[in-house]
C-alpha cells in the first residue's frame, strides 16, 4: 500500500491547507490504482461544504464528487483518494474521519499548526472498517496527465 504523487501535487495540497486555515481544506485526488498502490495524477480541490463548523469538519457533497468523477472519467481517471487538513491537530485520522471513511481510498491528512502546513501523512481504511492504517507517501517525478 502506498500513495504515489509528485512533489508539486504534495506542495499544492499543503498550500491549499494553509490557505484554508483556520478552516479545513479538502479535495479529491484523481489517478489510477497501481496494484496495491494509488497513483495520483490530478488534484481536484473542492470547496469545504461545511459552513457550520469548517474549522473542524470538511464535507465533499455527492454532487461535487459526481462532478469530479465525471471530469476524471473523460481522461480515464478515477477518484483514488482524498486530502484534507487538520488545523492545529495532528495528521492522524480522528474517530470521525474513521467513521466516515471509504475503503480503498488514500486519505492524506495535513496538519496545519498556526497557519503553517506541518506533517502530511496518508491513511487507508481497512476493508472490514476496522480502523485506519498508515501508508507511505511516495514522491515521484511529475507524471504528465
Amino acid at each position: 500500500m502506498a500513495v504515489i504523487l509528485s512533489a508539486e501535487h504534495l506542495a499544492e495540497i499543503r498550500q491549499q491547507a494553509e490557505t484554508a486555515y483556520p478552516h479545513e481544506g479538502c479535495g479529491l485526488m484523481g489517478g489510477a490504482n497501481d496494484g496495491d498502490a494509488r497513483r495520483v495524477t490530478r488534484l481536484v480541490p473542492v470547496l469545504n461544504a461545511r459552513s457550520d463548523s469548517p474549522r473542524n469538519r470538511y464535507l465533499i457533497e455527492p454532487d461535487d464528487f459526481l462532478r469530479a468523477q465525471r471530469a476524471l472519467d473523460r481522461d480515464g481517471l478515477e477518484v483514488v483518494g482524498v486530502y484534507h487538513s487538520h488545523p492545529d491537530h495532528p495528521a492522524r485520522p480522528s474517530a470521525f474521519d474513521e467513521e466516515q471513511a471509504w475503503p480503498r481510498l488514500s486519505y492524506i491528512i495535513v496538519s496545519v499548526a498556526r497557519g503553517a502546513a506541518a506533517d502530511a501523512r496518508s491513511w487507508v481504511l481497512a476493508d472490514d472498517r476496522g480502523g485506519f492504517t498508515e501508508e507511505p507517501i511516495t514522491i515521484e517525478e511529475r507524471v504528465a496527465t
Partner: protein
Amino acid sequence: MTVTVLIPNPLRPFVSGREAVNVDGGNVGEVLERLAGEYTALRKHLFADDGRLRSFVNVYVNDRDIRHLQRHETPVAAGDTVTIVPSIAGGTAVADTLPKLSHAEILRYSRHLILPDVGLEGQRKLKAARVLLIGAGGLGSPAALYLAAAGVGTLGIVDFDVVDESNLQRQIIHGTAQIGVSKLESAKQRIQDVNPYVRVETFETHLTSENALEILRDFDVVADGTDNFPTRYLVNDACVLLGKPNVYGSIFRFDGQASVFDARFGPCYRCLYSEPPPAGLVPSCAEGGVLGVLPGIIGSIQAMEAIKLILGVGEPLIGRLLLFDALTLKFRELKLSKDPNCPVCGTHPTVTKLIDYQAFCGVVPEPTYEDSEITARELQRDLETGRSLVLLDVRLPNEYEVARIPGARLIPLGELPDRLKELDDHSEIVAYCHHGPRGVRALEILRAAGFPRVRNLRGGIDAWSTEVDKTVPRY
C-alpha cells in the same frame, strides 16, 4: 425489474472489481439489500450497524438524489441506473458521538447556543470535554466555577488541602461554612450547586511523578493552578509526554501570567524557563502576598483558554505569554518560541519520563535547628519569669502592623544583614516570623555573624496566637 448499479471506485474491490452490477428490485431499498446480499463484504460499507444506509453513502436514480425522491421507497424500473455516490466527510472532532443536551441544558446554555462560535455543537463539545484542574486554590477557584457554569462535562480536581480562613480572601469557590472541610469536598459541593450537570472527579493527593501520568491521561485539557515550581515542572513535563495542552497561570502580589503550553503546536514551559529559579529566591503567595482579585482575573483567563481549546475557536495563547500588571492595569504579551534544545519537547529530548522534581528544583527539606528552637509556651514562660531576651520580629512592617508579640523589635529579614550592629551580641535573641522559615533564616544569619545565643520561635507568631495569646490575631 433489473437495474444497473454503478459502483464507485473505492467499492469495486468488493464486487469483484466491476464498475457496474445488474440487480433486481422494485425500489432502491430492495436493490441495495440484494446487492449487499450478493456481495457480503460490501454490506459493512453501505449500511451502519442499525441497518440504515451510512450517512456518506448517497444513492442516485438516473441522476437524481433519492433524498429528493422517496428515499428507500423510490421505485425503480427496468433499465434504470442506480448510482452509488460517495460524499466525503471527516474532520478533527467527533460530532456524531458527542453527547446530546437535555431540554433543561438547552435552556441553561441558551446564551452559548445563540453564539455562532459555540452553538449546539460547541456546547456538546463542552459537555464531552474533560478538564483537569491542578489545585482548587486561588486560580483553580474561578477557573472551576466558570468551567462548571459553562457546561464542561467533567471537571477533575487535584488537591489535598483543607479550607483555611486565610484562603477565603481569594479562593472564591470556598465559603466560610467550609472552613476545615477538604477543599475537594467544598469545591465539589459548590460546583454541583452552580451546575448539577457537571461531573466532578476528585483526586485527594499531591500530584507526584508516580501518579501524574495516570491522573492526567484521561483528561483533554489541564489547567495548572499550582503555586510551586516542582509541581509546575511536573505538570508541564507530564503534559508534553502525554501530548496535552497545559493552560498555565501564575500570580504574585499584583502581577499575573498566563499562557497555553502545548508542545505539539508550540513551546512548553521549559522552553520559557529551562531551569527553575534557585529554591527560596522567588517567594510564594503565602510569603509575598497576593491581591485577591488577581487570581480571579488570571484564573478566568485560564477558563477562557480551556474553553477556546475545547471549542476550537479563536487564537489560543499558544506561543504567547500574557503578562498582567494589576497596578497599572496593563496587559503585555511576549512571543514565545519553541526551543529546539528543550530537554523535554525539543528535537532530542533528554527527559523522556517524569523525574524527581523536588530535586530538580533544589528543594531540600528545611534545615531544622531543634536544639535552637523554642516553643510558644516555653517563650511565654521565659517572658513571665522575667528572663532577659530580645524578641526579634523578622517579618515585613505591614505584617508587624497586623499582629505582633508585645515587646518585639522589628528588623525585616531582608534588612537584617545590614542592621546587625543594632543588636547586642551578648543578649539572648529569639527570632520569629509568620510560620517559622524566615525565623530559621534569621537564625542562620545571626549565627554566621557570631551571635552565640539565638533561638527561633517554632511555628512563628501563628503558634503564639493559637497556643498562648488569642488576642494576637492570626492572619
